[in-house]
């Protein structure tokens, strides 16, 4: 099929206002069959809002939506799905307490309130198998899956709904590079069969690899649409953020790290991690890598007092300590802070205002004026938090801006040791550079940082050293020139070890 026939969906003069906030303003936009159309924009640019409009989740304040050239309203997601507009949301649409199977059957086209059909299972299995999700059992409860597994299921669910237009709103943000490749291969096949794809990601290399066409949004306005390759990286970033960004990463530190702040010796936890030893020095940024669920996040949880019955020893400033609760962890004696992975349920209180969220961790900590906005301002400014006012509920912020609040809330405590679980997931390029600078700056000021990431670039360009996890153990410790993409990927698959044993 040729891309220049009638668009599947066309938006004409669309605006979406939330009170005084204009999430979208006078947007004209179209997407066609047979092509991957990427949507770029910084956090809060209105990308998710656009997708929600097309998916029938929200209604435009102004303007017209046309499907196959016909003006129509999409009052709810069911109506959108009935027209072949299927969305994978940034906030996943899987029901946590139901099994994978039940989620696949739920709301499948043509089901209604009547009998559920199991004929979605076979195609879904096939999709899962293709994207490294073959191990996910149909009878597993979604709540027990990792974020990455959930994204895989979500992809399978979307594809089995026979979309004509498939919308992926940061649908691969928690997936590893190798899985992402497989997802892309599949998406390519789908477009070859004539479906359209709308794709949002903050990972530029993903856009580059996948998109046929790119649209850039800024502050709720549609800035430009062009074919992939028409402009270089710098120019696109320029369109996106209105300025040039030359270096994503700040220069690495020149001075050697200082005294040991934190030391893990033979750290273990039944069924999760085993014999993990890590040393963290003042001013160092240490990466924790590996496939999803290999124990990296358990280490962070253990350090933050969330695990019971851990083995081994934790030393802070040389003294053995027992960290029983997050409350103890954040106390000035220990000075540990954790920015958790799941901002919606773990990091933030969505119904409360930004101000209240910022204060929550600092309240009651001796020597911190929690209720003084000035202590957060350097961080919210540095991260360019985009909000109507600090009284705005956090839930109303765009995904990336929520993440900024989650970061600022802990940074203001000036922790001695900062534990970060994938802090740049869903963050736009510009903000990413700012986060990287901020982290480097904190490290230079003496904070020790443990950074869990799914983006290996961060290990290469930001971290001083990196531990790669596999099956609950550290299989590789990389530092200096060893930190290369190949080494990281190999260690991630535990290749080095298996090759060694074959030899």
């Amino acid at each position: 099929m040729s891309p220049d026939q009638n668009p599947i969906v066309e938006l004409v003069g669309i605006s979406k206002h939330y009170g005084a906030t204009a999430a979208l303003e006078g947007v004209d936009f179209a997407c066609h069959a047979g092509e991957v159309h990427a949507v770029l924009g910084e956090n809060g640019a209105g990308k998710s809002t656009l997708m929600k409009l097309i998916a029938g989740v929200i209604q435009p304040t102004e303007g017209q939506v046309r499907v196959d050239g016909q003006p129509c309203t999409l009052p709810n997601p069911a109506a959108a799905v009935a027209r072949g507009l299927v969305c994978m949301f940034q906030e996943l649409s899987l029901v946590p307490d139901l099994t994978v199977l039940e989620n696949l059957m739920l709301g499948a086209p043509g089901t209604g309130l009547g009998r559920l059909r199991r004929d979605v299972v076979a195609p879904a299995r096939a999709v899962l198998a293709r994207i490294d999700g073959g191990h996910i059992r149909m009878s597993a409860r979604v709540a027990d899956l990792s974020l990455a597994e959930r994204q895989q299921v979500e992809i399978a669910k979307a594809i089995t709904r026979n979309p004509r237009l498939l919308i992926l709103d940061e649908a691969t943000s928690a997936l590893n590079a190798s899985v992402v490749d497989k997802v892309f291969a599949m998406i390519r096949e789908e477009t070859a069969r004539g479906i359209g794809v709308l794709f949002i990601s903050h990972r530029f290399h993903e856009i580059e690899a996948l998109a046929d066409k790119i649209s850039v949004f800024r502050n709720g306005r549609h800035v430009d649409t062009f074919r992939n390759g028409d402009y270089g990286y710098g120019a696109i970033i320029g369109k996106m953020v209105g300025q040039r960004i030359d270096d994503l990463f700040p220069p690495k530190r020149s001075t050697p790290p200082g005294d040991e702040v934190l030391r893990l010796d033979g750290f273990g936890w039944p069924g999760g991690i085993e014999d993990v030893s890590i040393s963290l020095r003042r001013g160092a940024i240490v990466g924790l890598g590996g496939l999803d669920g290999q124990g990296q996040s358990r280490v962070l949880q253990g350090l933050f007092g969330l695990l019971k019955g851990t083995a081994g020893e934790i030393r802070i400033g040389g003294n053995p300590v027992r960290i029983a609760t997050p409350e103890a962890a954040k106390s000035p004696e220990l000075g540990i802070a954790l920015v958790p992975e799941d901002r919606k349920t773990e990091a933030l209180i969505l119904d409360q205002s930004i101000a209240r969220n910022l204060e929550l961790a600092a309240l009651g900590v001796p020597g911190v004026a929690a209720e003084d906005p000035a202590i957060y301002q350097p961080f919210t400014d540095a991260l360019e938090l985009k909000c109507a006012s600090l009284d705005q509920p956090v839930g109303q912020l765009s995904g990336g801006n929520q993440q900024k609040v989650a970061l600022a809330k802990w940074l203001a405590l000036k922790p001695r040791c900062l534990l970060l679980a994938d802090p740049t997931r869903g963050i736009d390029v510009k903000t990413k550079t700012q986060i990287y600078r901020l982290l480097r700056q904190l490290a230079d000021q003496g904070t020790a940082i443990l950074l869990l990431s799914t983006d290996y670039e961060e290990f290469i360009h930001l971290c001083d050293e990196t531990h790669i996890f596999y099956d609950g153990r550290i299989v590789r410790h990389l530092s200096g020139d060893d930190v290369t993409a190949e080494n990281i990927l190999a260690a991630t698959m535990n290749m080095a070890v298996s090759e060694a044993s074959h030899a």
Partner: protein
Amino acid sequence: MPDFLRSNRRETIAVAVLVLLLALYLGTHPRGASTYVLTIWGNQCLILALAAAAQFFAVIVRGIDLSVGAIMALCNSLASHVLGGTGIDLFFGCLLVVGAGLLAGVVNGLFIVFGRIQPIVVTLATASVLVGLALILRPTPGGAIDYDLADAMTLDLGGVPSSLILGALVVVAFWLPLRRTGLGMGLYAVGSSEQAAFQSGINVRLIRIAAFGLAGVFAALAGLYFSFVTTTGDAGIAPNFTLNSIAAVVLGGVALRGGVGSLIGAMAGAFILKTIGALMFFSGLPPLAQPFVEGLILAGAISIGGADVLRVRNRLEVFGR
């Protein structure tokens, strides 16, 4: 089947506790296990089981229904007026009673969905209205239910108590098929994550109204069965059943935060609760000590379901369970 046991763990515990308590009850009963004893036991258990079923439908969509007892009272009072006739009259009488429950439940649902008021508060208020209506129908206890119908419903069929047959019927003919429909799954989805359910294309409003409608229907059935057991109408029965129905669903492993549990568990919870009470009959405990021991066993039974939090090794796992 590790996944089956895992996702039905709480129901399994509930059934195990029930079997234990029943064994204890039959063991202390001078007459022992017999159709007669099981019939008596089943009758009073089924009333609460139906009330618990009503509560289940409210709870599964992350609601709570404080009008369960009030709907029962209304339906019981209504039944005592319309179930005195014969044959076809009785049939339509039952239909009318169930219809009244459905109506009450749907009204609850409409207030919740369109009035945007929390279920617990809506039903707190409608309960007051419904009890008022029941009092208009039955200012003092009275009226009569057709004895033949009542006997058919409360005695036994070939040695098997009618109550247990009816309870099994609810499960086999209604619940198990319902679980395989979009409605049944939608109930869980809405209760577990409204957002996800909505984005999956589910009509959240309709499901929620349907849930409270079903709650109304089952409360009506509970009121109806209460009428068969007591053969009379009484507007004053409300307070007793509402809170007990909540305790029952929790005992049966239904999570009050919605989306988790099954009707079977809820009904088993009701049987547990009533069996605890029945244990007192021949326990030989001093009469004034009985209420305390009853409360103690109740607290114990509830704690069993919660005891596995003590085994949780990741502190985050205790939240939202």
